[in-house]
């Protein structure tokens, strides 16, 4: 299957939220299914939410393809997984900061899993991010920097969330990263509740402090 075919499985035309799925990893995909022996694609158990609630969106911010695994687990609970990966592959021969290839393999695996799951067209979204994206440490200046940030324009607006009945966003991750914090702060300003879970504890409401850049505005 080509990247375009994989993308089509993730983006059934009639479904809501799919317009935010970034094509970048799909465009860069090669036929890598046979190279996935180092990836562990066991679908995790979800402890922090029992079933989908139509007023709740989730952002899974875990390293590499782990967010895809969790996205598939949440798809089984009725959420629509929306991959937001935006990292590019390195120049041939160069040493990259981030290895994006396992994400491509994960998306191929995920597509095959998604075909077995029935998700409602109005299912609430679970956005998938790679928490490695902001690793900026360069061993050497000759390294290929393919780290990336998530920006407000890569996600729906607060107005779109509210219009579609989403009043709560749960962030599942190890912490709330700097780039996401800026986006969530704006959502919070528009009265969307932000909750956080490490995957084990119940999601707890948090207050996002004004990010430094916002202070001048």
């Amino acid at each position, binding site marked *: 299957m080509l990247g375009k075919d994989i993308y089509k499985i993730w983006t059934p035309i009639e479904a809501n939220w799919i317009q935010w799925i*970034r094509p970048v990893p799909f465009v860069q995909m090669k036929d890598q299914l046979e190279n996935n022996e180092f990836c562990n694609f066991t679908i995790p158990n979800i402890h922090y939410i029992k079933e989908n609630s139509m007023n709740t969106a989730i952002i899974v911010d875990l390293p590499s393809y782990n967010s895809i695994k969790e996205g598939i687990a949440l798809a089984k609970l009725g959420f629509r997984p929306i991959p937001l990966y935006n990292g590019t592959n390195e120049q041939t021969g160069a040493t990259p900061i981030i290895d994006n290839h396992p994400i491509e393999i994960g998306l191929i695996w995920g597509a095959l899993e998604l075909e077995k799951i029935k998700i409602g067209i109005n299912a609430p979204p679970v956005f998938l991010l790679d928490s490695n994206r902001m690793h900026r440490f360069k061993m050497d200046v000759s390294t290929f920097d393919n780290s990336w940030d998530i920006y407000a324009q890569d996600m729906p607006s607060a107005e779109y969330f509210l219009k579609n009945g989403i009043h709560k966003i749960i962030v599942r991750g190890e912490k709330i990263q700097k780039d996401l914090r800026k986006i969530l702060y704006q959502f919070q300003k528009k009265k969307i509740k932000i909750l956080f879970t490490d995957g084990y504890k119940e999601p707890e409401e948090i207050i996002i402090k004004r990010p430094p850049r916002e202070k001048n505005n």
Partner: protein
Amino acid sequence: MRLITIPKEKYEDYRLKVMFNCYKWDPQFLDNNTIAKYALVISKKEHEELERLTEDMDYETRKAEEILNEHLEITKILALPKKIKKELKAMDNYDKDKHIRLMRYDFHPTIEGKWAVSEVNSDVPGGFAEASLMPQAAIDILETNKYWYRNFGEILTKAIATKVVSGGRIMLVHCTSYSDDRQVMQFLGDKLKNMGFDVIYAATDHVRFLNQEAISILSGNEGKIDAIVRFTPLEWLIDIKPKHWKGYFNTNTISCNHPIAIYAQTKRFPLAWNMVEKFRGKFTTWKQLLPETHEVKEVKNKSGYIYKPACGRVGERISIKEACKEDEYEKILKDVKKHPKQYIAQKQFNSKPLVSEDGEKYHVCIGSYSVEGGHAGYYARISQTPRIDSYAADIPVLIDNEK
């Protein structure tokens, strides 16, 4: 000029094709779909007019940058960033025949039935794949032979191949963290690779200069470079530490674009015209198309003017009130007051919206490219507000065969 609808039942196929075959990797911006549901058809007459105006303006612009480069004393009014100003002297070895000059002039139809030009993207114009592959995707979907298009990619790569040694090493310098930069470079890189060039995707700090020649230090790709195609704007480049970027200004390595582009890139360029004219520069076409432009202080309390940042891009921070979101307008005015030299005041033109077959109104910006002085195709965007910014949708430009 008119909008024709991509048939509704074929639009999803078209959108997929644009993403996967036409390098459009950013099809969504917040809640906005950035792939238009239309194609823009311009008449043969409109095309010929745009072609002529583009080439005339390009001639004037290139002549002006040579004059400015020879007479740095008249560049003060451009209020260029200090770090750039320091490097201007280094460009005294600039030889236009050595490098490849690429620009894009943004045209808008006005209610008076004329064209207005809002700016020239002199330094790092984008939209390469949209201008080269999207028109064919639209023609295929529309199943028609009534239209043609000028393929920008073919013209740019031909110009590169004319100057760069066959099979040479070309570094595509961009912000490697941004996929929307990479999509532009990937389109060009794939094309150049097919022509037999050795292509390297890298960042500005992967280049070092030795005896004014560029060298790649990117891991696994070290060695001499025969040409640089840069997509990192100059005003970002100068913020990179350590300061290895200085070599870009006086390099003998073939560059597209060479930093000479900065003179016309700043929106303050028109403020220097009077002085350039003293050295036999001419701006006849520019003056016909660019709305009156002044220092901010000259239009105090006058209505009908908008403010534009000197180093602005993609319509950012332009004070068109009806296009500003939330408190953006007030923020811009506050910033103009604080940093008047970083802005210009420009008479607002009245953009004439086109009406689609389904009755929607859209404002249009047609970016018209020049490569080495010749017209090189179009990159257009449409928006429901008169400001064409990141919320706008990309639309292919087709030229009518007959009319």
